[in-house]
């Protein structure tokens, strides 16, 4: 009898282990309990904790109003894209999530997100409540969008007024040439060791997404575009090369950007450079929360310089239509409550509260009129968004385009930091990116 017992116990152990394992695979982050939903929020504050702290009052109000609890996870920008991709691949994601609005079309193509129509569209009060430019980022033109605008953003130039005053610069530059000339004046050796330690300009040279935004804007200002009319990539066209060259030359040729910037991957580090007086100018979307956290008041804001002061149309582009959108996961077990959260976060009151907290722009017209959004800085952002911005290419492979152009520029900055960069290097890097893009299409 001993042997059969052994056999039975071995088989029982096998079954138990197999069942245990299948238990590990199930469940995931979608809560089975109907009164709790999961929400992945992008990092809009000074840190992940700061983002969560600023979001909490809103979520508490939501729970009070609906009785639905929200399990929040704030995800950094460096991880968000891959986390979403993993969720899409496995079909096991949160109920509601934030996306960078430039990814909207790419993610729409996966079919993993709830189309904004019917119940969801009614819950958020229809599309006419939203700013046209922001609504246009919800998905591909002519298709039902799969994301709803949540926070609006646009690039402006922020500068350190104290450093401007010391250098005798009265007003912010408006053209690219003026900008480079001022940046040269602001680049100084302050400690007498023969090397500059104060720089005219700072950027996150290792940030793939920020680099791709500049490839887009600078290309347009030079009369080019990342894709032709047929949707073929033209990263290495002459105007695109000229645009990227202008940006990379700030470090490689003009020497107004610290080589150390080639290692910066987080936007907050470049904001620190401006606050600490290590650099005088930067392009950014919403640094006010960082300024406030450090009690920094010596800042000014101006439009991103253009090739000519009166440029319009494509050549007058200063920013892409930036912002964060919100999507409901199609696989959500709790869609009714997920839709409630989407409606709540885009309501007029919460739009005011959240965009005030994160120093971003409301995406619904009614909230834009609130007193909190009548400051000079917000007006500058609004002007950029309304009159000088275009959406990033609304194509399915937008995500790849960001990765490829942004990485090419990251590598060019690295080359500039450790040696020299010629026009041929820039052309070759963009040609490689172009070939890879073409192969992926």
């Amino acid at each position, binding site marked *: 009898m001993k*042997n059969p017992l052994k056999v039975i116990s071995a088989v029982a152990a096998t079954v138990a282990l197999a069942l245990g394992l299948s238990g590990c695979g199930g469940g995931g982050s979608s809560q089975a309990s109907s009164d709790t939903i999961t929400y992945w929020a992008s990092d809009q504050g000074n840190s992940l904790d700061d983002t969560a702290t600023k979001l909490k009052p809103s979520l508490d109000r939501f729970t009070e109003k609906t009785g639905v609890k929200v399990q929040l996870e704030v995800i950094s920008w*460096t991880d968000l894209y891959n986390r979403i991709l993993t969720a899409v691949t496995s079909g096991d994601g949160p109920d509601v999530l934030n996306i960078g609005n430039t990814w909207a079309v790419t*993610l729409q193509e996966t079919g993993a997100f709830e189309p904004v129509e019917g119940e969801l569209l009614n819950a958020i009060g229809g599309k006419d409540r939203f700013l046209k430019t922001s609504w246009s980022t919800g998905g591909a033109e002519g298709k039902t969008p799969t994301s709803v605008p949540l926070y609006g953003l646009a690039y402006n130039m922020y500068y350190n007024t104290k450093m401007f005053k010391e250098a005798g610069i009265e007003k912010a530059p408006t053209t690219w040439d003026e900008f480079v000339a001022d940046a040269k004046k602001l680049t100084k050796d302050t400690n007498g060791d023969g090397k500059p330690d104060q720089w005219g300009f700072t950027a996150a040279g290792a940030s793939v997404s920020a680099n791709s935004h500049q490839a887009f804007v600078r290309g347009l200002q030079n009369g080019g575009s990342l894709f032709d009319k047929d949707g073929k990539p033209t990263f290495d066209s002459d105007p695109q090369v000229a645009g990227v060259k202008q940006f990379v030359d700030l470090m490689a040729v003009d020497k107004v950007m610290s080589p150390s910037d080639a*290692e910066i991957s987080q936007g907050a580090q470049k904001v620190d450079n401006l606050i600490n007086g290590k650099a005088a100018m930067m392009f950014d979307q919403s640094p006010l929360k960082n300024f406030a956290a450090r009690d920094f008041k010596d800042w000014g804001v101006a439009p991103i310089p253009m090739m000519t002061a009166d440029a319009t149309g494509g050549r007058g582009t200063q920013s892409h239509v930036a912002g964060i959108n919100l999507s409901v996961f199609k696989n959500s077990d709790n869609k009714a409550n997920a839709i409630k959260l989407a409606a709540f976060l885009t309501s007029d009151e919460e739009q005011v509260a959240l965009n005030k907290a994160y120093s971003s722009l409301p995406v619904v017209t009614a909230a834009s009129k609130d007193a909190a959004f009548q400051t000079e800085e917000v007006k500058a952002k609004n002007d950029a968004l309304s009159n000088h911005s275009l959406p990033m290419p609304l194509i399915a492979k937008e995500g790849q385009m960001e990765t490829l152009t942004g990485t090419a520029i990251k590598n060019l900055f*690295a080359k500039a930091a450790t040696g020299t960069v010629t026009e041929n290097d820039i052309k070759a890097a963009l040609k490689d990116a172009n070939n890879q893009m073409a192969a*992926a299409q």
Partner: protein
Amino acid sequence: MSHSALDGGPAAAGSTPAFDPEPGRPKASTALPVRKRRRSFLPYGLIAPAAILELLIHIGPMLLGIWIAFISLTQLNLTNWLNAPFVGLQNFINGLNPESTIGQAFFSTVGRTLFYTIMVVGFSWVLGMAGAVFLSSNFKGRALLRTFFLVPYALPAYVGTIAWAFMFNQRDGAVNQILVDTFRLVGDERPFWLLGQNSFGAMIVVNVWQLWPFAFLMLMAALQNVPHDVYEAAAIDGASLWQQFRTITLPMVRPANGVLLMVMSLWTFNQFNIPFVLFGASSPKEATLISPLIYQNSFGSWNFGLGGAMSVLLLIALFIASVFYIRMVLPKGADND
């Protein structure tokens, strides 16, 4: 010596006798008794949990990965991957075309990864061996030193690597603080360690730092089995320390060494964590290894078919290399006992 039919080995089991010595006599049943049959099921029952788990968490995903290499899997059909179009060898052709950007990157990366593996495994082995020999003799503080040597291996890989990333930072890192500010060893310019040419060296330093304690641990265990009187006899015969190491230590630890070198090579060749934590999602060109390249093709370009094809090529190459290595280098059981 192999078994033969003569000594009742496996060869005898299936053979038919040339003639029947007692024709017509009923044969005893060749079937096993019931009790013996029950007992013969026991080993399978005992091994089943491990086999099922291995199938579920290792073999299954691997077969899935091989399948992905033959389909065109992108974000357009990600959620419906079972219906992704079958493209045969197209992903392999794209990945191996030396004329294309992707193919060029693949071949140069394979070469770089091989060189990287040789460097990392070489340095780790030398350091591990030196540490093991050094600690094989008794002296005060040996236990403390042994613990100290194992710290990099005990630390979570991510924690150790991120600390190195901070130390290698060009502007504020400890490495430049020491080399430039304190000792002025590399001139006045603060070098970049995580960009350009230096990034490859920095990655080797971090990997060796993490890997050598493993070599040290394995070799120290192997050295415990070398009888001390062999060294004494050699010393009496006038052998120098180097001769003792070359003619006693090395041959004695050969079996452990064979396995150790293979395991370390496989780990290093497939290295992903260190470059990912040091450089982020895209490594510098000079320091791109094969696993991060596959990751970039799969998750950067969302071209999972191409990533899958490169993974399969890697699997085949490593499998062939491992088989060759096992047949050529590893001891053949009884022959070396």
